[in-house]
């Protein structure tokens, strides 16, 4: 019996049109053996949460550059609660000021927030540790 494979939804809410950061993270997670559902630009919190449920992900990672973090994280968290899906970890990254990070972590609206320049390996390590599983080694069919 194989170990469950880690699945992560990488979403890009908001209006800004850059998804380079999100793509770098997506690739790093893939290279760490995870399955990354990449849902593209301009996602609404509703779309993000519905996708996370259908895709049965362990983690939602939001990339935010638009400054909308203080509305988006609480909104996504609230929708997850509404859907009985609080077991999905909510993390994020992007240009988020330190004081906002503190507020969001304190309130529990995000489990972890990574600032630009965080080595991708740290994010991989954080996810694996929090889930207490290792992505299984590749098994050839």
């Amino acid at each position, binding site marked *: 019996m194989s170990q469950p494979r880690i699945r992560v939804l990488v979403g890009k809410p908001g209006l800004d049109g850059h998804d380079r950061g999100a793509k770098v993270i997506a690739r790093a997670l893939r290279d760490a053996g995870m399955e990354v559902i990449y849902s593209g630009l301009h996602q609404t919190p509703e779309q993000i949460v519905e996708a996370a449920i259908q895709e049965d992900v362990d983690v939602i990672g939001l990339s935010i550059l638009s400054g909308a973090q203080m509305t988006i994280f609480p909104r996504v968290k609230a929708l997850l609660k509404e859907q009985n899906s609080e077991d999905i970890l909510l993390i994020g990254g992007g240009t988020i000021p330190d004081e906002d990070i503190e507020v969001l972590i304190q309130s529990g609206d995000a489990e972890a927030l990574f600032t630009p320049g965080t080595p991708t390996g740290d994010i991989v390590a954080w996810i694996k540790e929090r889930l207490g599983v290792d992505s299984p080694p590749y*098994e050839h*069919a």
Partner: protein
Amino acid sequence: MTLSVNQWLGKLLLHDRRAVARLISWVEDNQEQSEIMRTVRAQSGQSLVIGITGPPGVGKSSLVEALTRVYRQSEERVGIVAVDPSSPYSGGAILGDRIRMQAHGTDRDVFIRSMGTRGHLGGVARSTADVLRILEAGGYPRLLLETVGVGQSEIEIMRLADTVVVVLNPGTGDGIQAIKAGIMEVADIFVINKADMPGAERMKNDIEMMLDMNGHGGRAWRPPVILTSVLEGKGLHELIDEIARQQAFLSESGTLIIRRQEQLQREVWQHLEDRLKEAFDSLWPALPTEWLTEGHKDPYQLVDKVWQKMSGHKREGGNT
């Protein structure tokens, strides 16, 4: 929330979306698979699967999105499985087909599930057939499958899809590739998408000519060739009509029964192969070392010995 498999199965039959999602993960991860599928298969199998295949970037996801929109107009609940390749190095994957389907992102009557191939060849994953049936049992009877963008569609799609839609683009040489790769034999419907670009009519004629020449593989069903443009919203209703016509043909001609038997055979073989591999992998290290030292010179002789051990009796002729 920790529920047992049976509780999740109960919820599945009540069309609970979370149950659909969770049971799919288990089957993909090879956990409780046979128990789950025993219940699911008893409650599914009526729906015909529309498989969309073709080279990378031809517009498979865009077509799935567009077809879904039409089916939603008639209130059909749509289950979509979209497969992307897993990395052969890490086993991870970036699954990006969903990007093009966001129009249905919050429609509770559409369920979209992305899958990595996880080492399986042929444009789908090992458990894709099971996943489709979980969607059906979970209340999504209109089933759409998007395969990996494969240059050459493999026969594997026939194991899963009742209607194989092969998508090509004009002016790309796709047509010739398709003929070479044997796509002609698996296609139930040809779609030339991006017909807003030049060369679509010519490509249609080429394919029709090929179908004339080889007598469409000796099959009673002649695959129609349809021009579509998702960009301009053209040809989609014609495609829907042809899908309906082909599915009616399958049922009325009795072809469906034969096709389902072939699908079953392939599925049983796939699972049997898995078991054989497991049995072999655990047997191999336990073989007497003399066997291996003398065996490496003559693998065929060793095959006979190993086969005897695995099957518990001597092989009786045949070539398997």
